């Protein structure tokens, strides 16, 4: 969540009205202070302060008890322990990378495909749009619950449909660490595809039909039109979608956490942070170090995006 707001507020900050500067009336000043000051205060308070605090805490062994002034600094020990001792850190990184891979290669392209199909005004397009978009509206907690009903080993829908109900043959969709990540990725992709579909569909709706007609006159088929005309012309949307996909993958949390607390094959950086900080374990220092690592990783797509945007603006 931090990341999107960072991007948004960056956009907000560069749009002060460029009027001819005369004298500001008291009202103007008030409006300016409110419009610039308030977002700035919120930005500092809700984004930069936690970031700075997390970074400081990550070098401490604080357990959340006692005065902040008694915190003992332990240098990079947390980071050292994370990299060398924590049996779940590297699996979590791997799982996040798999998540990105599945989203970028499967879920997002599938969402784009849905958008392109629905853009052609096929019969019942409204119905399909609603059906595919529905998982986006549902809370992830509910989605997690629904998919548990499907994946449960004994009474689950999937095993019963497949006829695998005897103890020896039932497939352990959520408990087997070599398949449970993919099982929940199906659920997560189901949602992601609908999300991307709506974003892309909005882009397609504003696409100039003249370009499409011109391509058709030049003899381009459906696929060639999309590949050489529509897709390149949609570049701004494509970048937004890529960033959204990366961010959604990095902040993946809910489904894994609701399934089994983000353990046993479902470790993600976000669930490790929650287990350490958000639970009674209260390993603030250690969890902060994990959070800083996730922040640094998240900065890569964010910076790339901002760099792209600013470069375009400058032109």
């Amino acid at each position, binding site marked *: *969540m931090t990341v999107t707001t960072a991007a948004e507020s960056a956009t907000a900050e560069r749009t002060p009205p460029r009027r001819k500067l005369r004298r500001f009336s008291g009202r103007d000043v008030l409006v300016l202070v409110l419009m610039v000051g308030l977002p700035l205060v919120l930005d500092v308070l809700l984004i930069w302060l936690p970031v700075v605090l997390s970074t400081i805490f990550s070098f401490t*062994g604080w*357990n*959340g*008890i*006692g005065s902040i002034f008694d915190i003992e600094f332990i240098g990079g020990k947390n980071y050292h*322990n994370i990299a060398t*001792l*924590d*049996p*779940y850190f590297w699996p979590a990184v791997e799982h996040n990378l798999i998540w990105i891979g599945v989203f970028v290669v499967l879920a997002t392209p599938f969402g784009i495909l849905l958008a392109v199909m629905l853009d052609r005004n096929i019969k019942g397009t409204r119905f399909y749009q609603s059906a595919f978009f529905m998982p986006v509206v549902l*809370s*992830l*907690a*509910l989605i997690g*619950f629904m998919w548990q009903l499907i*994946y*449960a*080993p*004994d*009474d689950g829908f999937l095993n019963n449909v497949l006829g695998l109900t005897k*103890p*020896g043959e*039932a497939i*352990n*969709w*959520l*408990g*087997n*660490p070599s398949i*449970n990540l993919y099982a929940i990725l199906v659920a997560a992709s189901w949602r992601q595809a609908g999300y991307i579909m709506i974003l892309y569909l909005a882009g397609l709706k504003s696409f100039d039909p003249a370009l499409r007609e011109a391509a058709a006159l030049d003899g381009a088929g459906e696929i060639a039109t999309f590949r050489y005309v529509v897709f390149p012309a949609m570049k701004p949307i494509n970048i937004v979608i890529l960033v959204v996909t990366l961010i959604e993958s990095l902040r993946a*949390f*809910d489904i894994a*956490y*609701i*399934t*089994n*607390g983000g*353990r*046993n094959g479902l470790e993600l950086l976000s669930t490790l942070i*929650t*287990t*350490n*900080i*958000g*639970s*009674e*374990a*209260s*390993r603030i220092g250690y969890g902060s170090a994990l959070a800083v690592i996730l922040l640094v990783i998240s900065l890569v797509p964010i910076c790339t995006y901002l760099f792209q945007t600013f470069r375009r603006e400058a032109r």
Partner: protein
Amino acid sequence: MSTMPTVPTATLTSRRSFLKGAVALGGLAAVPGLAACGSGASSSTTVSFGSNQSDPVPKKAYAAFVKDFEKKSGLSVSVNTVDHETFQNQINNYLQGTPDDVFTWFAGFRMNFFATKGLATPIDDVWKKIGGDFTPALKQSATADDGHQYFIPFDYYPWAVFYKKSLWQKNGYQVPKTFDEYIALAKQMQSDGLEPLGFADKQGWPAMGTFDILNMRLNGYDFHVSLMRGKESWTDKRVKNVFDTWRGTLPYHQQNALGRDWEESAQGMQQDKVGMMLIGMFIGQQFADNLDDLDFFAFPELDPSHGQDSLDAPTDGFMMSKSPRNEDGAKKFLTYLAGTRAEETYLKADASVIGANSNIDTSGYNSLQKKAVDLITSAKNTAQYMDRDTRPDFAQTVMIQALQTFIRNPKDVDGLTKQIEAQKQQIFGA
């Protein structure tokens, strides 16, 4: 979330809704939200009471005895009820902020943790008045390392091997008296097409019960305590013996345990697919319509020098915060909570626990509760359960994962215990 057996049984039913709430609050988890829940009332006629009993039935029972206390004492109690899991996850912030005068918490190590941090007030004078009503074991569980009492035990429940009477009658099964009989029974059940031992650990905590009981049967209660407190090495051959014994029984455990919640195993027992199950008495919730059909026995002996002298019996109760605004009133309230009236009111609403006070009227108990009283009072030692007997960070970030690893790959005990020990030193050494 981290979901722990520390949930008093009546609240377990809506674990999923807790989970949802917890997820909804996920973003706020690090915010000391509970601090704001402390009541601002500071008058000497008001006692503030932080309760984690958020489910409707226990909440109503709490409200009933609070009202009774108000009538009797002339004091007024302002109750702040917080969802159980949120309460537990935020307890650190809560106790360091502006906590209520009296709050719900757990006996034993978890009580001691906050007592030694100075976040609770000793209540020895209350215990002088009420001491005779509680067993020495309960008093022990209310006493911190400094020798003072900080806790009022309210209710508890045993962990034992539960089974469905009608199924056992039909198949002619007898309660096993020895471990060999236990294994023989499991084999018999297997050949009868049942899954002998119901087993579920998707939630992470239920498998701790099996480790605990094997450890206490093989190595005794004292070893359990010092192992949980980080004083023994996890690479000790006694620990390995626990895992080895467990591995020997794994073929009789329900498969796919890591993909299943304990409620699903209980349903398997309801459907006569599962023969028996080591679990807490809260399993009764899954037998709402046929509670009479449920029975249990104590886990059989493994080492004659320890017999069946210990069991897990997590105890819930109350503590007083570090600087209560109304200390006198709070102590009066705690004294009342230790008495029989409050417990009897509560037990009417929750039949899956038993009252801690020895003098309460047990005529309303069902047969399970009566048997539970016998089981707990005849045991020499009552442990609180792994995640209450050790540091929460160790339980949450090491042991849940370690036991799941064992269930997945029971062969590499050496590697597993080495890894637990390394993480233990990192956490306990910090």
